[in-house]
């Protein structure tokens, strides 16, 4: 009995320590940076009278009263979406329509009426503060220095040209540790403590989902590259009042992936492997159906794989090689893809949607098995960026003491440039309402890095993707085609 108790205590102790170690993993201290003009006191500037109230929950309550005192933004809300639920002092403006999936056409803020000031949190006469979160530590394992160098390059560039409508852009960066809970926490910090005007999601679909839903709950505009469209139990990202996807979602990319398969592997066996994150359930179903319709029985397998592939890598690799497929449509974490390719004895073509699998760090780790892999991406690779935007490389080198740029630099440059164009479109009297109204006005934003973006019809504003291909000779991806639709 004593022996048994001792063993039980031992196991309990070991488990507790294991959790402690796991909890301590992935910590990189000090991954929180500010770029752009410094020296501004946080949370003090430019906050409109009355903090933004909670937005109307989807389908539950009507949007709150529109702004008062100044012109409200006409047409700030699209049908079926709720107005920012800010409550302010002063006269009453237009009343927003009810939000949510079941709501009718949402009312716009009082058009041209004596509305109040829009929600100008994070905006002063001289600055606009925006937040960025991305995974620097954790399973994604992107280089910290890459993000540190990348974030703020465009902000520094545009600030040197006078800023956006005379305001300089401040960029605050936070590491979300590839963890949805941590992503929510850093976004809460950005929104509530740092009082940023808006937030950009850098990478990681679960983290983007988590932060986007939080940002919506506090009325903060949130922009990321397209990820999944919906999550079981939480609904579609398109229903979020403040969310905007600046490139095609995974589901929207499914037909492009299928076309890539049929154009190169007609009559050949193909497999589909998608990580078992519940946020990818819908993509898995859409992609599977699309492939089945296009290639029928040649879809040899369609399976879910673990989110973090570790000890499972050899089994997955063996299954791929034993199946006789010539191509695998892959949607999973970059590190998982690398681990699988390291265990493979055969050569297959990997292809798929998303941004992160097309990063050069994946080619470095996954080659030579990843040779010729094709992934869609919202940004081009280093071989094309100088033709598309000659300002990128000089600006990158200028901010980073002559360091060579990498593709994470391109991604962040594109995101910041796009957001700067959108901020510009928000007008001189920039507020969150005017910003979102500008996005939903039907205007196309083409920054020569991302494919053109238009939110006129949907919060999923992507119109095309760039196609990348891995060159294992150089251990990097190159841009195979631009603006694939």
């Amino acid at each position, binding site marked *: 009995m004593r022996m048994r108790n001792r*063993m039980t205590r031992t196991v309990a*102790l070991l488990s507790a320590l294991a959790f402690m170690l796991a909890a*301590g993993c992935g910590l990189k201290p000090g991954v929180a940076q500010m770029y752009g003009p410094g020296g501004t006191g946080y949370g003090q500037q430019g906050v409109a009278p009355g903090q933004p109230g909670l937005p109307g929950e989807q389908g539950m309550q009507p949007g709150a009263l529109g702004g008062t005192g100044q012109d409200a933004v006409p047409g700030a809300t699209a049908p079926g979406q709720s107005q920012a639920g800010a409550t302010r002092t002063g006269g009453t403006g237009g009343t927003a329509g009810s939000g949510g999936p079941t709501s009718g056409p949402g009312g716009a803020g009082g058009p041209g009426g004596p509305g109040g000031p829009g929600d100008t949190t994070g905006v002063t006469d001289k600055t606009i503060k925006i937040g960025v979160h991305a995974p620097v530590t954790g399973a994604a394992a*992107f280089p910290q220095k890459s993000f540190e160098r990348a974030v703020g390059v465009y902000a520094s560039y545009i600030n040197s040209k006078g800023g956006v409508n005379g305001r300089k852009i401040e960029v605050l960066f936070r590491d979300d540790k590839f963890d949805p809970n941590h992503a929510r926490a850093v976004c809460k910090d950005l929104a509530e403590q740092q009082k940023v005007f808006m937030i950009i999601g850098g990478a990681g679909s679960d983290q983007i989902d988590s932060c986007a839903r939080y940002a919506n709950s506090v009325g903060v505009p949130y922009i990321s590259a397209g990820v999944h469209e919906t999550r079981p139990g939480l609904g579609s990202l398109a229903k979020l009042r403040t969310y905007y996807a600046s490139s095609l979602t995974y589901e929207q990319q499914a037909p492009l992936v299928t076309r890539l398969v049929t154009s190169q592997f007609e009559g050949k066996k193909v497999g589909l492997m998608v990580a078992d994150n519940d946020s990818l359930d819908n993509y898995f179903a859409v992609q599977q159906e699309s492939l089945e319709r296009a290639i029928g029985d040649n879809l040899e397998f369609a399976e879910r794989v673990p*989110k973090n592939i*570790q000890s499972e890598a050899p089994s997955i*690799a*063996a299954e791929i090689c034993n199946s006789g497929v010539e191509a695998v449509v892959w949607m999973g974490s970059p590190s998982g893809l690398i681990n699988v390719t390291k265990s493979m004895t055969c050569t297959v073509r990997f292809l798929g949607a998303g941004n992160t699998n097309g990063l050069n760090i994946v080619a*470095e*780790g996954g080659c030579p098995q990843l040779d010729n892999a094709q992934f869609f991406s919202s940004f081009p690779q280093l071989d094309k960026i100088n033709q598309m935007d000659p300002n990128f490389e000089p600006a990158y080198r200028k901010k980073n003491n002559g360091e060579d740029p990498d593709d994470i630099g391109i991604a962040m440059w594109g995101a910041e440039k796009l957001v700067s164009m959108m901020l510009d479109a928000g007008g001189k009297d920039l507020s969150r309402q005017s910003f979102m109204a500008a996005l939903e006005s039907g205007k196309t934003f083409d920054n020569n890095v991302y494919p053109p973006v238009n939110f006129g019809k949907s919060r999923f504003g992507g119109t095309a993707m760039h196609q990348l291909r891995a060159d294992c000779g150089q251990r990097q991806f190159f841009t195979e085609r631009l603006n694939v639709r």
Partner: protein
Amino acid sequence: MTTELGIAVVNGIFAGSVYALVALGIVLIYRASGVFNFAQAEFGTTGLFAAYAGVVLWNLPYWLGLLFGLAAAVAMGLATERLVINPLRNSSRVTLLVGTAGVALAAIGIQFWQSNEQPIREMPKIVEGVALQPFGAAITWQHLITLGVLIVVALALAVFFRSPSGVAIQAAQQDGTAAELVGISVRRVSMMTWAIAALLGGLAGVLSGPNLTFTAGHLTFGAGAALLPGFMAAVLGGMRSMPGALLGGIVVGVIEQLGSLSLFGYMSGGGEMMLFFFLLIVLLLRPQGLFVRKAVAA
């Protein structure tokens, strides 16, 4: 299904050989000092990072890089003994355990700090290529070398524990004062034990690292995570049996791989769940461990 099962067993044996190396180090430390060493896997990751630096960054000959990696692991083991274990030798076991966890976290922190520029690293294999493909599972030469090293290590440890030095370790653990009285330096024995354990961890690191890419904390929570499986293997071996730890490692590897069968739909954490259930059942039925005889009450 047979093919899949075969793949799981084959992959499990080779994954298990790494767990066994880690488990042997855990059992060695536990037998010698009663400490649960949570830094055991990090000896391996540190050795791997050092070997990577030697082979890839400094272009040393592979064998020299490997030796450098193992030396770094041993140095870390000795430093842990001198700076953490020895000063805390009169503390409770829980304090010592937390001390070793602190060593692991510190090592992981340093690895993160040092690998910021290139978080995903790749160590070349000793011999490239695939040796066998039973059931379609890729058995690389690296896998075979790892298994071979495990067998050699197991034999060497068996011989060692019958040598005067091996007996000294056991004597020092059972009664330090009595051991000192018969001329055994407990301090030296403790350092030797930690050095051997760190060497075992280092071997696990430098041999398993080339099979996957590696990041900071590779053997603790990364792609090659072997700490928890190593502890499970040690528990299966009753925490005191070296052959038990070795066999426990192989069993843990195989059970874990069974969790990745498509039967379970590649469920996330399927392997870990299988392992915990297995361990629970074993502890309920044979609390003394799988590979040790039941203790007889005095």
